[in-house]
C-alpha cells in the first residue's frame, strides 16, 4: 500500500449529515405496521410449531410417548428433545416439539404427548447464602494492600447488605425463528442479534455446511443481549422441518416459556464493609458477594466497581446454583449489579460520617482509572446542577413533613464500547445510485440510519440517496450487536468503504476535470476540484463516466487498529441522579425527575443517541422499581412468568427524564463509542439511593417495591 487514504472524520464544524438529528430510516415502515418481523412471516406451506416443556424444577424423564400426538390430523412432525433418561434441571426445559398445520392443532398435539417424570430434589433460593448448602461454591479470596490494618486505622466504618434480583430480558418479540431444512440446505429467518455468526453456529449443530445456510432478518423485536446464538429452538425447528418433508416451520416461544428459559440477568447480593476518613475518603473495601445465574456459574459482579484503585481490598464471590433458567448477557452484563452494590455502600458510608454523598462520590472518584477521574467529577457536578441537588438534597428522612418524603440518589457506570471487527462494502453504480452493504442488524438502535448518515456525509449526497442493505449472511461480515460495539464498527466500515469507493470514482473522473484524482472532492452532490466549484461534475454525470463498471470497495474495522485511526474508541463514563417521592405509609415510589449525564464520543445522530439513553433509563427504571423473578421454594416453579406479575414500567411510571449528552470537541476527537449499554448501568443504584434518602433507612433490596420499602421501614429483613 503506497498511500493510506485519510479516513478521519471531517471536523465538527464541516459536517453536514453526521451530527444531525435525522429521523430513523425505518420509522415509517414500523409506525405504519408494515415492517415484517420474523414472527410475522408466513412462507408458503409453513407449519406452526409448539413446545411441550417440563413443569418440574428438577426431574428425570422416565418415559415419553408421542404416538397420540403423531396421530392427530394436521400434525406433520413430532420431535423429542428430552428422551427418556434425560435429567431436566429447571421448569420450562424443552421436552418435545410439534409442527402442525395450525397453531391450535400444534398445541393440542403437545398436550397429547405423555411424559413420565421421576421428581428430583430442587433448590431455587439464591438470596439465603447460609442455607444454600452444597449449592454454594465459594471462589478464591483476592486481597490488595492490608485491609485489616486499614480497618484498624479507619476513622469511620460502615457496613451493609444489599441485593439485586434475577430479572428477565422480556423482549417483546420472543425467541424463535422460521426455519426450513430441505435436503442439505437451510433457509432460516431468525430473531437475532447476530446475523453474520448465525449460520456457522447453527451449521455445527446440524452438520450442515454454513455455505448451505441462508439467513435473513429485516427486523427484530428486541434482544438486549439474549439473542446471540441460534439456540436449541433453531435446532428443534430445523428437525421438525426435516421430519415434515422440508416445509418451513415457525417455532417461537410463548411468553411463559420465553421468560423461563430464554435468558435472564444473574442476581447479586453482598455484605460490604467500608473504612475511611472523616473527609469522605474510602481507604478500605471488603465484600462477600453471592448470586445465581441458574445452573451455570457466573463471574459475579466486579468489586469494587469503577473505583478499582481503592488501596486496600478484600473480596470474595460465591456462586449459588439454582434450578432455574440460565442467565445470558443482559444489557451491560454484571454492571448494574456492580454499580448498585458500590453506589449503595458509598452512600451508606457518606451517611455514617454525616456527609453529603455528592461530596463523597467526588472525593472517591480519585480511585477511578486515571483518564476518567476528571470526567466523573465534572459529570457529578453537572448532574447535581441539573438535578438542583444543592437546593433539593436533605440528609436521610428529612425531606418532607407529611407521609410523602422526597429523596435524591446517585449512581455511576462505565462501559467499554468501541467497534467490533467487521467489514462493509460501498457500491457506486454508473447511474449514480449508492449502496452500503454489510452483514449487520438493526435492533432498533438506529444502525441503518447511522450507516446512511456516514455514507451521505462521505459521498456529499443527501441521506435519501443512500441505500442500506443489511440483515443477510451473504453480505460482508459484521459482528454481533453486543457490547455496544455496532455503531463503532459500522460507522468505521462505512466510512472506509465509502472513501475507498470515492477514490476509484476520482480515478475515472479526474481526466474530465483536468485534475489529479487526489485533488477531487465530493460535496453537495458534485464531484469537483477541491475548493473550486467551477471545475465540477454533478454526481450523476461523474458516475456516468463509469460506463458499465460498478465500483465495489470494502472497508474494514480492525479493533486493535481503531484507536490509532481515531474513528472509534472505547470507554464511556456516566453519572445519573434520581429524584423520587416515597409514601412511607404505602411504600409507593413516584419518580419525579431523572438526570443522566453521559460522555459519548462522536455522536452521529443526537436524536438516536438521546433515544438510546432514554430507553436505557426507562428499562432500568422498570428493573429498579418493579422487576424481579419470583421462585416458589416449595415447588421450585417460577411464579411470575408473565407480564401482569412481572411488571415493566409504563408510560406514567418514569417521571421526567433529562439527558445531557456531553458533546464537546475533546470528546468528539475520541471517535464513535456506542451508547446502548453505558446509560443502562446506574439506574438501580440511583433509585435505591434516592429511595433510601427519602425514607431515612437503607432499603437494601431491588426492586423498590412497597414490600421491600415497608419491610425496611419496619426493620424487617426484606
Amino acid at each position, binding site marked *: 500500500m503506497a498511500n493510506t487514504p485519510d479516513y478521519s472524520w471531517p471536523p465538527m464544524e464541516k459536517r453536514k449529515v453526521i451530527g444531525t438529528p435525522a*429521523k*430513523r430510516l*425505518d*420509522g*415509517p415502515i*414500523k*409506525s*405504519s*405496521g*408494515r*415492517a*415484517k*418481523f420474523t*414472527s*410475522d412471516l*408466513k412462507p408458503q406451506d409453513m407449519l*406452526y410449531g409448539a413446545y411441550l416443556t417440563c413443569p418440574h424444577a428438577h426431574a428425570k424423564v422416565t418415559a415419553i410417548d408421542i404416538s397420540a400426538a403423531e396421530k392427530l390430523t394436521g400434525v406433520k412432525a413430532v420431535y423429542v428433545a428430552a428422551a427418556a433418561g434425560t435429567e431436566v434441571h429447571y421448569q420450562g426445559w424443552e421436552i418435545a416439539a410439534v409442527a402442525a398445520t*395450525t*397453531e*391450535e392443532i400444534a398445541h393440542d398435539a403437545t398436550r397429547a404427548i405423555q411424559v413420565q417424570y421421576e421428581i428430583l430434589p430442587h433448590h431455587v433460593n439464591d438470596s439465603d447464602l447460609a442455607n444454600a448448602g452444597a449449592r454454594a461454591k465459594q471462589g478464591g479470596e483476592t486481597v490488595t494492600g492490608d485491609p485489616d490494618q486499614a480497618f484498624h486505622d479507619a476513622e469511620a466504618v460502615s457496613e451493609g447488605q444489599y441485593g439485586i434480583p434475577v430479572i428477565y430480558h*422480556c*423482549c*417483546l*418479540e*420472543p425467541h424463535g425463528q422460521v426455519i426450513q431444512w430441505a435436503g442439505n440446505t437451510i433457509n432460516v429467518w431468525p430473531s437475532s442479534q447476530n446475523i453474520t455468526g448465525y449460520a456457522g453456529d447453527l451449521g455445527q449443530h446440524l452438520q450442515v455446511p454454513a455455505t448451505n445456510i441462508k439467513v435473513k432478518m429485516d*427486523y*427484530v*423485536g*428486541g434482544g*438486549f443481549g439474549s439473542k446471540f446464538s441460534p439456540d436449541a429452538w433453531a435446532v428443534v425447528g430445523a428437525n421438525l422441518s426435516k421430519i415434515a418433508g422440508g416445509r418451513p416451520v415457525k417455532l417461537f416461544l*410463548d*411468553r411463559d416459556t420465553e421468560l423461563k428459559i430464554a435468558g435472564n440477568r444473574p442476581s447479586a447480593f453482598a455484605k460490604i464493609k467500608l473504612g475511611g476518613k472523616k473527609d469522605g475518603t474510602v481507604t478500605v473495601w471488603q465484600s462477600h458477594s453471592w448470586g445465581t445465574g441458574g445452573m451455570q456459574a457466573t463471574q459475579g459482579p466486579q468489586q469494587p466497581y469503577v473505583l478499582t484503585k481503592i488501596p486496600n481490598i478484600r473480596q470474595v464471590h460465591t456462586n449459588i446454583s439454582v434450578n432455574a433458567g440460565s442467565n445470558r448477557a443482559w444489557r451491560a452484563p454484571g454492571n448494574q449489579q456492580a454499580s448498585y452494590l458500590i453506589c449503595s455502600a458509598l452512600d451508606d458510608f457518606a451517611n455514617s460520617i454525616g456527609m453529603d454523598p455528592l461530596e463523597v462520590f467526588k472525593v472517591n472518584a480519585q480511585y477511578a482509572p486515571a483518564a476518567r477521574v476528571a470526567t466523573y467529577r465534572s459529570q457529578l457536578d453537572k448532574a447535581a446542577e441539573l438535578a438542583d441537588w444543592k437546593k433539593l438534597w436533605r440528609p436521610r428522612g428529612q425531606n418532607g413533613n407529611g407521609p410523602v418524603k422526597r429523596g435524591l440518589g446517585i449512581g455511576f457506570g462505565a462501559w467499554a464500547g468501541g467497534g467490533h471487527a467487521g467489514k462493509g462494502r460501498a457500491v457506486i453504480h454508473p447511474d449514480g445510485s449508492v449502496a452500503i452493504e454489510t452483514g449487520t442488524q438493526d*435492533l*432498533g*438502535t*438506529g444502525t441503518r440510519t447511522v450507516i446512511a448518515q456516514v455514507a451521505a456525509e462521505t459521498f456529499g449526497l443527501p441521506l435519501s440517496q443512500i441505500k442500506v442493505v443489511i440483515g443477510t449472511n451473504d453480505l460482508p461480515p459484521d459482528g454481533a450487536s453486543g457490547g455496544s460495539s455496532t455503531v463503532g464498527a459500522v460507522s468505521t466500515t462505512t466510512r472506509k468503504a465509502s472513501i475507498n469507493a470515492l477514490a476509484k470514482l476520482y480515478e475515472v473522473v479526474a481526466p474530465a476535470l483536468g485534475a489529479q484524482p487526489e485533488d477531487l472532492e465530493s460535496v453537495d452532490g458534485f464531484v469537483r476540484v477541491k475548493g473550486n466549484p467551477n471545475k465540477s461534475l454533478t454526481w450523476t454525470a461523474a458516475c456516468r463516466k463509469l460506463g458499465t463498471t460498478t465500483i465495489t470497495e470494502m472497508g474494514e474495522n480492525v479493533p486493535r487498529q481503531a484507536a490509532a485511526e481515531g474513528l472509534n474508541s472505547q470507554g464511556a463514563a456516566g453519572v445519573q441522579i434520581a429524584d423520587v417521592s416515597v409514601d412511607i405509609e404505602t411504600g409507593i415510589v413516584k419518580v419525579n425527575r431523572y438526570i443522566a449525564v453521559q460522555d459519548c464520543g462522536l455522536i452521529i445522530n443526537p*436524536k*438516536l443517541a*438521546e*433515544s438510546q439513553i*432514554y*430507553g*436505557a*433509563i*426507562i*428499562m432500568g427504571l422498570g428493573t429498579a422499581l418493579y422487576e424481579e423473578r419470583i421462585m416458589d421454594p416449595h415447588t421450585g416453579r417460577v411464579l411470575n412468568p*408473565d*407480564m*401482569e406479575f412481572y411488571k*415493566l*414500567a*409504563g*408510560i*406514567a411510571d*418514569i417521571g421526567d*427524564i433529562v439527558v445531557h449528552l456531553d458533546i464537546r470537541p475533546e470528546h468528539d476527537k475520541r471517535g464513535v463509542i456506542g451508547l446502548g449499554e453505558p446509560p443502562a448501568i446506574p439506574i438501580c443504584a440511583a433509585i435505591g439511593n434516592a429511595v433510601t434518602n427519602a425514607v431515612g433507612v437503607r432499603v437494601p433490596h431491588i426492586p423498590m417495591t412497597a414490600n421491600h420499602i415497608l419491610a425496611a421501614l419496619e426493620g424487617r429483613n426484606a
Partner: protein
Amino acid sequence: MSSKKVPERPDTGFSRRGFIRGVGVSGGALGLLETETEAAAAAPAAPATVGPGEVPITLTINGKPVKLTVEPRVTLIDAMRNFLDLTGAKRVCDRGTCGACTVIMAGKTVYACSILAIDAQGKSIETIEGLTSTAGLHPISKAFCDNDAQQCGYCTPGFVMASKGFLNEHANPTEEDVKHGLGGNLCRCGTYMGIRKAVLQASKDMKGAPKNG
C-alpha cells in the same frame, strides 16, 4: 379521565372462558380458577353451540368484509396474524396486559388477544393496516417518526392504535392525560418520552380531521 381498555364483555353469548367451559375442557387453567359464583355470573343465558371444529366467520376489518374459517377458540389476534396475514398487531403477553395487539373494535380500544374471533363478527374492526392510505402516513404514525417514538418497533403498532383510540375520545389531551390514557400499553425499549410528544403532536395535527379518518 381514562381510556383504559375494558376487556370486551360480549353479549352475544361467547367469551374465551365461556367457550372453554362450553366445550368441557374442564382441566384448563381458566376452568380451575373459576369459582361457582364467578361461573354463574359469567354464564351466558343460552349459548348457541358452535364448534369445536372449524366454522366459517366473517369479520369486518378496515371497512371490508373478510371471510375465513377458524376454530371457535381462535382469538382475534391469532385470526388476524395466522389466517389473514394482518401482522401489524403483535402477540406478546397473550393475556391482556401489554397492548401490543391493540385494535379498535366498534369504536372501543381493545386487546385482540382477549377477544374470540367469532365474537368479533358484526363489529367494525380497525387495525394498523387501515391507517395508512395512498396519501401517506397517518398523522399518528408520522408523529411517532417525527418524535423518535419507536426503537425495535414491536410495540409500536399497538401504541399507534391505542393512541388513535385515545385521541378519538380526548381530542385535546394534556401530557398528564396521555400518561394515563396510554397506560395499557408496554414498551421494552423505553420509547415513552417520544410517545408522549408524538401523541401531543398528533392531537394538534389531527385538528379538524374526521374522527375515524
